[in-house]
């Protein structure tokens, strides 16, 4: 019996008196494409931060690939196979694009394998990833020379360089044009075809609907819906809370 890749049980997080997440539970199967939506301030990014270890949740357990990750530092979780991209891109400003990808390769993928990637193998993988996102021409440039959408792609490529089993894409499409959004969706689809489980956190309904196999809705820190995308958006509670009457 296949166990879920990610199992979240009763996760809560408060900031002083403010409850950001209230008993959130969800599970994600290997290879699944999960969409996570909700109004601003509903706790989506907080959830991602708790899952990755950037924040500490007060209650609840997070089990990844059968391992309880509570107490593990973010870098340890990345090495286990959980990767995330940041809502506002956070590239390593003093490193070239190729070196930006080299970091997760050296520090995550290489560590996990047990056997070392040689320097040329690392170079090859950097090149391959940059080609995948269409940035190979700028391999030696610095992140400050990139456009907005290129930064988003770099962000995703860097998450990919860690060779993850699960990728959490945090609002990778905000503020992009129609064709740029298409680009990102195509990229995510290609990743999904490689067998990577993807959680897509987004506001752009068109993208979420076309990409997700399952949809989870978060409102005020609580999960109010979880299921087939078509059913979820027709749920009256979801309409009321998020989509508007």
């Amino acid at each position: 019996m296949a166990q879920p890749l990610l199992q979240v049980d009763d996760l809560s997080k408060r900031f002083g008196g403010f409850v950001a997440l209230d008993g959130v539970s969800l599970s994600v199967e290997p290879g699944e494409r999960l969409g996570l939506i909700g109004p601003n301030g509903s706790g989506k990014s907080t959830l991602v931060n708790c899952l990755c270890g950037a924040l500490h949740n007060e209650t609840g357990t997070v089990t990844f690939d059968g391992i309880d990750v509570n107490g593990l530092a973010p870098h340890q979780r990345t090495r286990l196979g959980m990767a995330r991209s940041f809502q506002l891109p956070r590239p390593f400003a003093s490193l070239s694009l190729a070196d930006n990808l080299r970091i997760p390769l050296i520090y995550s993928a290489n560590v996990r394998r047990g056997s070392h990637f040689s320097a040329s193998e690392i170079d090859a993988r950097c090149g391959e990833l940059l080609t995948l996102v269409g940035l190979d021409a700028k391999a030696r440039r610095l992140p400050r020379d990139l456009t907005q959408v290129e930064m988003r792609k770099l962000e995703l490529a860097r998450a990919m360089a860690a060779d993850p089993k699960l990728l959490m894409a945090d609002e990778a499409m905000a503020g992009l044009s129609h064709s740029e959004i298409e680009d990102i969706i195509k990229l995510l689809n290609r990743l999904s075809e490689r067998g990577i489980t993807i959680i897509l956190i987004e506001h752009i309904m068109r993208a979420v609907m076309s990409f997700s196999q399952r949809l989870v809705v978060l409102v005020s820190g609580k999960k109010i819906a979880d299921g087939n995308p078509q059913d979820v958006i027709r749920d009256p509670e979801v309409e009321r809370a998020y989509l508007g009457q």
Partner: protein
Amino acid sequence: MRSWTFTLVAVVAGAALFALSRFVQNDYFFFAGYVVLQYIVLSTAWNILGGYCGYVNFGTAALFALGAYTSVAIHKFHPVPIPVLIVIGGAVSAVVGLGIGYLTLRLRGAFFSIATLALAVVIQTLIINWDYVGGSRGAYILRPQTAPVIGSYIQYLFLIMLVLAVAAVAVARLIERSRLGYGFATIRDDEIAAEASGVPTLRLKLIATTLSGAFMGMAGAPLPYYVGYLDPASGFNLAYAVNSIAMPVIGGTTTWIGPLIGAILLGTLQQWVTVTISSAVNLLIVGLLLVAFVIIAPNGIVGLVRPLFQRGHR
């Protein structure tokens, strides 16, 4: 240039420098040279944590003085060859650096910096209250007249510091080109993204602090023999605190060359100003240069010069 080749070149250059200097009759050259070499070690050490990782250590004087006072304490117990003192001094400062790092590096960089400031005051307080090493009155170390092999004792001290300087620079360059150096750079650029990419940031920061502290302690260990008399005022001298920051910032913090350039330029300038004007004015100039560079040329001299070399390079 591969790292081992560089190390070889550095050693040869150092040896050549020493060989040439043997022709110099004036002892002042060795006294002044010792100070400049000492600053090369201190700036390079500071830069491993400050420039590479982005964590500013204000307590250089404390870690440096610890090395010096360890030598005094051991000397009073039983005199021991300087190289041994260097190893012990380095170890003591490394451990203290590691300790302060362990307590504060989990927090924001600003808190680490503040803690290092306070650490300097505390260690100074402890030393002042420790009568065995002379407390606030200070301690005398009798400098031997001659040294093994080399002959002149000051030339012996000069040679020791030269070896330390070569070692420090070689280690800094080794780190810079290695996987460790990449990790350090990500900590400086964006620590949160570094963690998310699998970089064990705490461990790397502790490595940097320990290495940095070790070299500072090693630079301090021979000091009592150089000055002959050590008291807290000179050991914890203001000059060490500001110079170890000013030299890398002015030289350039992202590479091993920066601290080297900063130490040589600023160190020589200071020797000249101290002798011709006064030591207080000298410190004022350093402080003003630091603030000026930080505002106008944040990447230091290296940052100003580098674009000139990059035409057609990439």
